[in-house]
């Protein structure tokens, strides 16, 4: 790129690559941060000022704009061409599709041009993403758009949650970053469990849909031994048994919705019909307390009707409010949960404890159980009322 002289950004790229070259020689980075933003927003721009500007003046300012893509990262060439035109005019011409959080990153812009670039991008329907202690840009898998495993409308959930909380993204006021991610099934194609504070994973409550004829065809094609070794023995909870007539015996009560058998036999098997989501919270990477995965907070929430979606939205808001008010500075919600304990977190956001939240109950006897009976009563009351519904 640095070579197509005609372009306005040619010199900027030349100097950028010059500085990069220099980093390669010295094995040292030369950028420092700062503060740059656009009118009305507090975040979304990652400012970069060069520490070796004297040698590479044209890339002395090389800021990045984080812009949210259409949910699922679908593009018409029309939209992409407009993005290119704008960035050619105001920026370096370098665009990342996409950042690890899911932003379009327009990389390389002077302080002066940031507002101009954003204005033009905003005019074509794009908006700023997240940075700093704020709600971050989200990601949803291709799901409903092109995947038979998808258990809920990812686009709807993704846009509803984020667009409902935009203020938290555009005017950073949270203790620290907060990320939502949406995967249509437990294959988790957007790495939500490890990489988001609030992971929404599609699943189902009823039985796996089976076409036994297609099962037989599969067995006939791959052979019994192969079928046993690649499907039956791989089920994490031994929920599968191969009948002597080569049909499949599925113990749906033991099945944990891992997806494997369905993944292998895409024609013969598919997720059940009573669909919804499992929600995990607390995922993050290494900083301070080491990597955390999200853990189950909502074992199942139906997600089909408008009411269902409203309920999800409400939960998102509740958790963000709790986080805003109770997390320590620079503390991720997973760290908060670790600090105060899951049970207290659940109480705070008004969610009842459920055995699906743990791999197993406590193995340590070091706990005070003075109020055992009251706590047990809560469970019985719930079960009672559930039964009476």
């Amino acid at each position: 790129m640095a070579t197509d002289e005609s372009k306005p950004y040619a010199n900027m790229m030349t100097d950028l690559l010059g500085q990069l070259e220099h980093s390669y020689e010295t094995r040292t980075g030369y950028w420092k941060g700062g503060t740059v933003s656009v009118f009305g927003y507090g975040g979304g721009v990652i400012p970069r000022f060069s520490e070796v500007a004297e040698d590479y003046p044209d890339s002395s300012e090389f800021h990045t704009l984080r812009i949210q893509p259409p949910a699922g990262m679908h593009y018409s060439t029309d939209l992409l061409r407009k993005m290119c035109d704008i960035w050619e005019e105001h920026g370096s011409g370098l665009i990342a599709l996409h950042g690890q959080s899911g932003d379009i990153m327009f990389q390389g812009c002077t302080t002066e041009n940031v507002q101009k670039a954003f204005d033009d991008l905003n005019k074509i329907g794009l908006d700023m993403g997240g940075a700093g202690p704020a709600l971050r840009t989200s990601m949803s898998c291709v799901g409903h758009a092109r995947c038979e495993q998808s258990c809920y409308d990812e686009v709807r959930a993704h846009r509803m949650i984020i667009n409902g909380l935009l203020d938290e993204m555009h005017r950073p006021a949270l203790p620290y970053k907060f990320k939502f991610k949406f995967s249509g099934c437990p294959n988790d194609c957007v790495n939500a469990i490890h990489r988001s504070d609030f992971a929404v994973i599609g699943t189902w409550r009823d039985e796996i849909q089976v076409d036994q004829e297609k099962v037989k065809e599969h067995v006939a094609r791959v052979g019994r031994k192969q079928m046993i070794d690649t499907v039956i023995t791989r089920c994490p909870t031994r929920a599968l048994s191969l009948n002597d007539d080569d049909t499949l015996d599925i113990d749906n009560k033991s099945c944990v919705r891992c997806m494997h058998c369905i993944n292998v036999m895409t024609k013969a098997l598919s997720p059940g019909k009573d669909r919804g989501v499992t929600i995990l919270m607390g995922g993050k990477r290494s900083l301070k307390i080491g990597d955390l995965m999200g853990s189950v907070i909502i074992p199942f929430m139906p997600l089909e009707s408008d009411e269902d979606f409203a309920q999800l939205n409400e939960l998102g808001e509740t958790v963000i409010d709790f986080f805003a008010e109770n997390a320590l500075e620079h503390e991720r919600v997973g760290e908060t949960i670790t600090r105060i304990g899951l049970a207290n977190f659940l109480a705070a956001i008004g969610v009842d404890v459920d055995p699906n939240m743990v791999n197993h109950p406590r193995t340590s006897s070091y706990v005070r159980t003075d109020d055992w009976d009251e706590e047990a009563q809560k469970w019985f009351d719930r079960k009672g009322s559930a039964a009476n519904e």
Partner: protein
Amino acid sequence: MNKAALPRRADEHGVPDPFPHMHPLLRQNYGNWDWHDRPRPGVLHHVAKSGDEVWTVRAGTQRQMGVHAIRKLCDIADEFADGFMRFTSRSNVEFMVTAADKTQPLISSLNEAGFPVGGTGNSLSMINHTQGWLHCDIPGTDASGVVKALMDELHHEFTHEEMPNRVRMTTSCCQINCGGQGDIAINVQYTKPPKINHDLIANVCERPAVVARCPVAAIRPAMVNGKPSLEIDEKKCMCCGACYPPCPPMQINGPESTKIAIWVGGKHSNARSKPTFHKLVVAGLPNNPPRWPEVAEVVKSILYAYKDDARAWERMGEWIDRIGWPRFFEMTGLAFTRHHIDDWHGGRESLNASAHIHF
């Protein structure tokens, strides 16, 4: 020099050599066994590479026996089992005989003498127990008494092999837990911080040692009405009882406050799954001698749910891993509470960090 006064000096034999006390067939085939099967509950049939065969009849004992009971076992061994017996790691007694037809008379005489034959294979074997009120200095409940009460109700499961796999139950009479891990474990769970008898502490307790014993540093030295004593931060204290043995004046037990908790899914063997610790399922049960009915009821509901639903070779914990904890609580009618969520060191590891859900 009054040598006479000096007591006898011990011969340090150490662990006695078992061979003189081992059934001849076992001695002859030591290290050379080929395979085994179980002709009937309570009977093992082992075949040696030499072709020798031995039938073992296993019977339950009270573990703590009077000499007359032990002599009765000796009479039986002399009459039917070549004068030898052995005890198992669960306090059952085993008699070895050299022919299949020698088992029946042996079994009959054991039954007559009141020793139930069973405890083999996929049965409920003898319940491990400890000392309790009979002999320990820190017990919260009794040991043999609880076991007696339970075994009376579960007798059938000892004499029959109707379980999916072996079931090992264990009891402990204080939270130290001398009993082992168990498929089902019945343990004491304290619910109140120690009540301190300040008058005694000064004399009997080595205070720094007691302070050091507390897992959560809830004990601090203090002056109580002029005397050096200890005080407890009741917010921090989680009532583990660790301070009680070294300091009896820190009474952890109370007739009401000392409760019983039931744990499931402990496993020692390495078969299939790795060994595991048992998990808490219910606490707050009354310590209710002489028959602990509330405890017996819960134990039965767990045992029979397992018996009905588990698959061959699944141990209690493996069964639950397959069907999931939600269903376990549903089937047993027990409550899942905030106290089930582990918050001790490393507790976070027990959270479900996956989309693996049981419905």
